[in-house]
């Protein structure tokens, strides 16, 4: 069972809580908009939406400093935004435009923002994990108190390079955090067909590493667990593993729902949808009088305007010059 709300929310700063909520709302809205507009075929690259997983992105990134670095995977939109990545550059990238964060070269699976501390996103499962450990090595070598956090899927834990990376980070006591978004599936295959039945935190024992298992749809629980891991790393205590249970609502890749495929049951889906990380948190804030309907409406309106502007920017931005396609292979 995941731990929930290890710190009672009551003791937390209301403005900060509202900030978390706003960021989750924003990520949700960005991805809903991508889904809505995808069929227009202006975004001509694969998209892996993280709708339903906003609390992990926001909770984890809130535990980091701007100069800490995250590494992400194919499902990187939420991480990028939560760490402070530039929305316009992201939308331009997905539209293949020169103003994209990769100049249109990478597409949706390669989002990065050096200033914000999004070091790289890599669409090969687990391939970014050793990059995070390498960033942590650089911090240690230079005596900097920065931390590198790798976002992993549950599937990523099965790749050998994760284990090699975890072992190396543990032996060298590197300031790294392995943050697992366990959404139960790798593409259409359930966890039970891919890993034996044991708590996922048991993996950490192989590397003598502390591990925490949290409700990944509870943003403050995610935050608290990540703070613990990040603090330990920053203090020279070495790496940790955080397992956060959550759920991807839409299809693995693309804008639609895919429950008709039959790989997961409608009950399971409904249960998780009922545990919406954004909705539940908003309801809680309202119940505790921290959020009013007006405020929420204003938030939504601001966010919608920002997203509209980002899409407008991305659509109007020029494509890269085809003649530049071969530039910059070497530095």
């Amino acid at each position: 069972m995941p731990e929930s709300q290890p710190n009672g929310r009551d003791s937390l700063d209301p403005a900060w809580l509202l900030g978390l909520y706003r960021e989750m709302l924003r990520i949700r809205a960005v991805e809903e908009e991508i889904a809505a507009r995808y069929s227009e075929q202006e975004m001509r690259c694969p998209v892996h939406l993280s709708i339903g997983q906003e609390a992990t992105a926001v909770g984890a990134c809130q535990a980091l400093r701007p100069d800490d670095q995250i590494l992400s995977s194919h499902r990187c939109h939420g991480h990028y935004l939560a760490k402070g990545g530039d929305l316009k550059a992201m939308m331009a990238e997905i539209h293949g435009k020169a103003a994209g964060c990769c100049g249109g070269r990478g597409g949706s699976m390669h989002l990065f923002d050096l200033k914000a501390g999004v070091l790289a996103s890599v669409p090969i499962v687990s391939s970014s994990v050793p990059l995070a450990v390498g960033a942590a090595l650089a911090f240690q070598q230079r005596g900097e108190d920065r931390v590198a956090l790798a976002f992993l899927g549950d599937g990523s834990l099965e790749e050998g390079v994760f284990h090699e990376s975890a072992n190396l980070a543990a032996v060298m006591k590197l300031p790294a955090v392995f943050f697992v978004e366990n959404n139960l599936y790798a593409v259409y295959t359930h966890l039970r067909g891919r890993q034996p039945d044991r708590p996922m935190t048991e993996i950490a024992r192989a590397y003598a590493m502390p591990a925490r298992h949290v409700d990944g749809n509870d943003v403050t629980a995610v935050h608290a667990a990540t703070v613990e891991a990040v603090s330990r790393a920053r203090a020279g205590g070495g790496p940790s593993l955080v397992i956060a249970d959550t759920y991807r609502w839409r299809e693995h890749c693309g804008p639609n729902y895919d429950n008709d495929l039959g790989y997961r049951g409608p009950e399971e889906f409904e249960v998780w949808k009922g545990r919406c990380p954004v909705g539940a948190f908003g309801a809680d804030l309202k119940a505790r009088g921290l959020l009013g309907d007006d405020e929420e409406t204003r938030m939504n309106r601001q966010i919608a305007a920002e997203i509209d502007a980002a899409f407008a920017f991305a659509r109007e931005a020029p494509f890269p010059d085809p003649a530049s396609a071969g530039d910059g292979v070497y530095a």
Partner: protein
Amino acid sequence: MPERLLSAAEAIREAQDQAMAADRRVFVIGEGVADPKGVFGTTLGRVEKYGPGRVVETPLSENAFTGVAIGSALMGQRPILVHQRVEFALLAMEQMVGNAAKAHYVSNGAHCVPLVIRLIIGRGWGQGPQHSQSLEALFAYIPGLKLVMPATPADAKGMLLAAIADDNPVVFMEHRWIHYATGHVPEASAPTPLDGPRRRRDGDDVTLVATSYMVFEAVQAADALAGEGVGVDLFDLRVARPLVLDAVVQSVRRTGRLVIVDTGWQAFGIGAEIAARVTESCFGALKAAPRRIGLPAHPTPSSPMLAKAYYPSSEAIAETAGSLAGLEKNRVAKVRETIARNRNDVPFDIPHPSFRGPF
């Protein structure tokens, strides 16, 4: 009885099914083989028919499950392994190069590795740098591996059957866009020998060798050139290793000119080997240096505007082959126009309907 039209994806599915039905040792292994999409439809429904013991859905562990497939093959099983993107095989290079390719040789013939490794090459729809490479040159380099690259649905079926029946590790590269191509495919389970190139068009002016999906682009080019009186002797390479070039060399002896078009990067690609070997074989017959057409030396960009410049078009093939054959500039331009007209308005980053065959 009218001949059946199948897509290459369906042909591949049928070949696997027939092989599994005929031989209990044959099984399928990989990520997604038992899922509801069934590797672009090519394994769909097989787990229902043969059960999870023979349609082995694996954890995400490319290196291990490649070794597992090899180990099972050493014990006499006949696995068909699949990666939905060739990139994933980079994680398994050590197993492929170290164990699969060498076991028979190192054991002085005692071991066999009857393993098929299906590697799917992506293209289009902005898949970008890490989901659309065409890395056949990496596998072509390795003695002990065979490397097969079918273009037509009939070959997709027949050569897959032959690869399954082969006692060696066979890398079977499928370009995503050939999956959509349709063609006449015999119903019988009849392997097509892995024996070298097949002529797809006849001509006396220039020899054109193409691989995999580029065969279709080359067909467009050859047909348009024929309209301007340039005869293209077009070969579908089919097998990159072992590389058998007799028919190509014979053709070049006649035409004196060679153009090679492949799906990978041009530099250090399989076109270099073909050019070098043909030159060695019939230098005296060559009227000009062999020309290679391949990808420019950079990763695949995701943006459609950049990717458009990346992939060689039938126009480019026609231009190279035509001018090599001495076609005047204005007539080359006409050929380009013809091809462009045929293309209509289909975006270049999805497969063109005219590539759907039948071939």
